């Protein structure tokens, strides 16, 4: 029985602890709690150590895995346990604003977005108010094999869809096996990019109904399908391509659409003899350079922040040009402010310069909280269309039907608020 006595002791010792934790499991009362993800969370302590914060409250960083961050934010909102400051994927801003989880940026700080990429800044404007400040930016473009394009007689992928596709056919013919481009059929980003390049809006201007049955979206969807139908892209999900780097290295495909996080992977995972054989280029469009989605993370201050002024001060310090440059060095992420691109020599490197050119050509996605679910359903239907199970008419009507169903609550709330 000695063990159970020890258990009683342990339990008894735990009682006062439990009582204290019933409030909030936090120690230092006025420290700033900050949540961050991935590489930024890892390097934040370094970054904070370099800030002149004498007399300011301490900063406690809690890292969240990217894959669980979104649900963690919402669960914490429900449990009234959000921190003071947070790193937020900029596509989550509309949702967090809709539920009142974040504070608008104070007027005095809005000048921080001067000289930033307008497309990315725009994702932070919800209902004409700035709700977050871009911390780093990203967007997707094409990573391509220079050598394979050179073999086919091209310096770079052409900028118009028809010419681009013709080039892909040549690239495919000069190789013995494989395809030309990898666009996993379970990822919605690729069709979204093509739709934006064609000028489609995806939803109506109020964000209350789907707008998939439009000439621009139909054009994009047809083009998307043709890449599979003409054998330029494998009809496969990301999971079926066992190792992207191996396949890219052996030329199974010559174009891999992705974001800046892939630069580091290319450098570490491709064999040494291929290091000079890859490059980046903006996306093509129907009649010239295409558009992409403005991505990245923003810094926000949560509504329940203990001391909003201190929290915004910290955000301001993290966005100072020198600190942006240090974050770029530490993590390789792309800074939001153009002047930092110049000082960090990012414009001199053709790999990152292509990102700057693509970032100048971005279109914000619809800012409705339901967007992620809508776009997931869009891809479900698009896959059926690619596999020949539906016609294009059925597909776009089905997408609209699904979007309308998901937006029903939003319509009800808007009509009720109008009536009130």
């Amino acid at each position, binding site marked *: *029985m000695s063990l159970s006595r020890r258990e009683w002791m342990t*339990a008894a010792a735990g009682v006062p*602890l*439990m009582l204290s934790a019933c409030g909030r*499991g936090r120690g230092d009362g006025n420290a700033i709690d900050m949540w961050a993800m991935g590489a930024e969370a890892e390097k934040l302590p370094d970054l904070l150590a370099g800030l002149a914060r004498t007399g300011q409250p301490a900063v406690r960083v809690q890292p969240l895995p990217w*894959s*669980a961050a979104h649900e963690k934010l919402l669960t914490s909102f429900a449990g*009234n346990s959000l921190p003071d400051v947070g790193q937020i994927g900029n596509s989550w801003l509309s949702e967090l604003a809709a539920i009142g989880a974040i504070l608008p940026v104070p007027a005095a700080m809005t000048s921080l977005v001067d000289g930033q990429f307008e497309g990315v800044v725009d994702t932070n404007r919800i209902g004409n108010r700035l709700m977050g400040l871009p911390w780093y930016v990203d967007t997707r473009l094409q990573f391509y094999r220079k050598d394979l394009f050179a073999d086919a007689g091209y310096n770079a992928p052409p900028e118009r869809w028809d010419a681009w596709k013709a080039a892909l056919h040549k690239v495919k013919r000069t190789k013995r096996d494989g395809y030309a481009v990898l666009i996993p059929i379970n990822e919605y980003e690729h069709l979204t990019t093509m739709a934006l390049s064609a000028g489609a809006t995806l939803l109506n201007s109020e964000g209350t109904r789907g707008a998939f049955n439009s000439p621009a979206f139909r054009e994009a969807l047809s083009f998307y399908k043709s890449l599979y139908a003409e054998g330029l892209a494998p009809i496969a999900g990301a999971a079926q391509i066992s190792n992207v780097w191996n396949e890219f290295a052996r030329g199974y495909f010559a174009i891999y659409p992705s974001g800046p996080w892939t630069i580091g992977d290319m450098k570490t995972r491709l064999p040494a003899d291929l290091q000079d054989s890859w490059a980046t280029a903006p996306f093509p469009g129907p009649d010239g350079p295409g558009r992409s989605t403005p991505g990245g993370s923003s810094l926000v201050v949560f509504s329940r922040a203990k001391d909003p002024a201190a929290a915004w001060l910290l955000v301001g310090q993290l966005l100072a040009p020198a600190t942006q440059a240090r974050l770029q060095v530490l993590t390789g992420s792309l800074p939001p402010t153009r002047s930092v691109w110049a000082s960090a020599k990012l414009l001199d490197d053709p790999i990152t310069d292509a990102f700057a050119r693509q970032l100048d050509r971005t279109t914000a996605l619809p800012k409705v909280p339901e967007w992620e679910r809508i776009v997931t359903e869009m891809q479900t239907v698009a896959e059926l269309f690619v596999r020949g199970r539906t016609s294009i008419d059925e597909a776009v009507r089905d997408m609209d039907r699904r979007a309308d169903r998901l937006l029903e609550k939003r319509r009800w709330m808007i009509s009720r608020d109008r009536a009130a």
Partner: protein
Amino acid sequence: MIRRYALTAFTALVALLVLMPLVWMVSVSFMAPGEAAAFPPPLFPSSPTLENYRTLFGSYGVGRYLLNSVIVSSLATLLALLFTVPAGYAFAKLRFSGRDAVFQALVAALVIPGQIGMLPLFLELKAMGIVNSYAGALVPWLAGIFGIFLVRQFCLSIPTELLEAARIDGATEGQILRRIVLPALKPILITLALFVFLGSWNDFMWPLIVLADQNLYTLPVALAALAREHVQDNELMMAGSVVTVLPVLLLFLVLQRHYLSGLLAGSVKG
């Protein structure tokens, strides 16, 4: 004779295969970072090191999660005993109106998995203001129907004459519970405590939902978060798994008789 050895050897082989993942986990946790990611996969560390454990407790604050797990599991065990032992005894030995009907309802409720009410329970605790606290993580362990069963099963074997004699001597019902029933229940108390401790230590879904604050994470929740961020750090994750598994495994090995006998008492009467 030969057959006997063959059978034992075969059983040993099966047991070795079954225990292999656990042995490998311990072995890799002592390897230098990066050592396990090789082909062929090494079975033993070339030069055992405590590096991974140092990193875990030093840089990743696993000590804090270990403490959380100890606190939550100990409190869950204590509270579960406080709530279920008197109830189990009362259902077995005390005559009161409605006893059998209530007990039948509890039997029927066993078919309902706890996850059914998880979403409303979260909202309920939100209204009570105990989301994101130890208290929130403990709540499901207060409502342990299985514990009541186990205790009742055991109490049925206590002779009623013994209790009646005590009543005639003027003992109150509370005194009877403390002086006569509890001492007799000792073996089953250890079993029940072990069940709840192991169950709450290993629990994942509910603490994952209810604990938002990293300072309150229990080991499984912390390990799941770490594993998503450190996919490449094989040896570090194995060390984390050892820290998580070892306490319950040792507890089980020391008290396995109590555990297995309780399991049989609770299940086979189905």
